């Protein structure tokens, strides 16, 4: 069995778990105007931006002149909170790993600095951080994690795959505990690209609404600490939740669009249920991928109808709170799923007014408290047909 013993998060709705929970409970979205990202689209779009400049993030991390880029700092802050919340003071007591995920890596800085790199040699440090995996090697160096490090890059399902790999390494006794999750910072390249695909909504996104126009990009990082049963018993540790199921499948349909009947999503959810040894009717809440694009929400709703048939559990997309945080999305939403279990609350799918005509499914649109939540399904579907689902269960 794999236990979650710590969580850490930073996103547009808060710089830690406590702020995140407040925002979720108060229905306070993090979607708003662009303040920090330097882009020509600044006044035309809304995003889920972390409300701190690079200098402020450095300060929060207790660092100065670190040359860590935004992606790395977000990762570091969330990792620190996760390790602290898991009560881990010495990472070398057990075989400890770090599995992260990112799509942007250091590009948030290199895109600004590479043009005059030859004139300004001082930029060299940032140029060296371009590669996706550098944030992970920086973070493990900072915390002294030496037993295992790798970075996964499978688009929007990346962090879920990091979580899955972590669980497998523990189940196969390769690691005793592992910090798993993902990080992504907003950057011009990504912004420009999503705009070119015409899947951005210039206004606040409306996941699962019949009139939805697209997604809002977001940024952030979140990590879980997963520990084995043996370590939890030996340390007499308080556990937060159980990672009871996980599944991944390829949609095999299109490079960026999901299949109309959500085949990949269906297969991933089925696998997760099988590992958790749960029938669909045991799921109490689904935190959906729910990006707000015409394509994803229809595909995911269709997959849910095929899995759950007439008994669709309450579901919501929390991307109208945080934006679509790309490689960090699955871990940010894993933390939200766990908060849901801990606080017996289903967080609302904000900004959804008109039910989808084609599937007639409608998410939870207001805060639901005092709900007994034993099992939460969390979906994340990435470009390249990479579909992942996780199931978290109450202790």
């Amino acid at each position, binding site marked *: 069995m794999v236990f979650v013993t710590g969580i850490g998060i930073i996103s547009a709705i808060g710089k830690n778990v406590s702020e995140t929970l407040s925002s979720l409970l108060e229905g306070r979205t993090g979607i708003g105007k662009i303040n920090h990202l330097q882009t020509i689209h600044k006044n035309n779009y809304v995003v889920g931006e972390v409300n701190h400049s690079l200098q402020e993030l450095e300060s929060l991390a207790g660092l100065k002149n670190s040359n860590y880029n935004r992606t790395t700092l977000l990762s570091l802050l969330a990792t620190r909170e996760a390790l602290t919340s898991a009560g881990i003071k010495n990472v070398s007591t057990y075989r400890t790993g770090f599995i992260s995920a990112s799509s942007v890596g250091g590009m948030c800085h290199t895109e600004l600095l590479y043009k005059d790199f030859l004139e300004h040699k001082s930029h060299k440090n940032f140029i060296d951080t371009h590669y996706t995996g550098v944030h992970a090697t920086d973070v493990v160096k900072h915390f002294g994690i030496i037993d295992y490090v790798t970075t996964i890059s499978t688009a929007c399902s990346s962090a879920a795959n990091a979580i899955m790999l972590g669980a497998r390494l523990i189940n196969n006794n390769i690691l005793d505990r592992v910090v798993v999750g993902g990080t992504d910072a907003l950057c011009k390249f990504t912004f420009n690209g999503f705009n*070119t*695909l*015409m899947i951005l909504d210039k206004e606040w996104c409306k996941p699962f609404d019949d009139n939805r126009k697209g997604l809002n990009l977001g940024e952030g990082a979140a990590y879980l600490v997963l520990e084995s049963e043996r370590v939890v018993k030996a340390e007499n540790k308080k556990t937060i939740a159980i990672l009871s199921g996980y599944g991944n499948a390829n949609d095999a349909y*299109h490079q960026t*669009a999901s299949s109309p009947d959500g085949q990949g999503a269906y297969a991933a959810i089925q696998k997760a249920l099988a590992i958790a040894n749960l029938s669909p009717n045991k799921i109490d809440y689904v935190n959906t991928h729910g990006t707000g694009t015409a394509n994803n929400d229809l595909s995911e709703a269709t997959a849910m109808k095929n899995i759950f048939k007439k008994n669709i559990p309450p579901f919501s997309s929390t991307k109208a709170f945080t934006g679509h945080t790309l490689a960090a999305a699955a871990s940010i939403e894993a933390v939200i799923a766990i908060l849901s279990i801990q606080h017996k609350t289903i967080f609302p799918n904000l900004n959804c007014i008109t039910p989808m005509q084609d599937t007639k499914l409608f998410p939870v649109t207001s805060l639901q408290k005092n709900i007994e939540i034993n099992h939460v399904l969390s979906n994340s579907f990435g470009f390249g047909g990479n579909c992942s689902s996780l199931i978290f269960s109450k202790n």
Partner: protein
Amino acid sequence: MENLIENLKKQIIEQLNLAEVKPEEINASAPLFGEGLGLDSIDALELIVLLEKSYGLKIQEPKDAKNIFQSVATLAEYISSHKK
């Protein structure tokens, strides 16, 4: 109009990387999407780029594009009636 259609065929082949297709193989009134050339949603976006790049015509919503991109002929029709 004939010239425009012939030029469009060449531009479409180039813009969409249809390396194995020759202009004479494209029927001007055959559907571009679904059957015919079997183009997909990304190809539709590239056609939007082509319209702006080569003809200065901007399409704001992908949904508007559906009728315009039905065939090479409808695309040519749109260009000649809107071109400044």
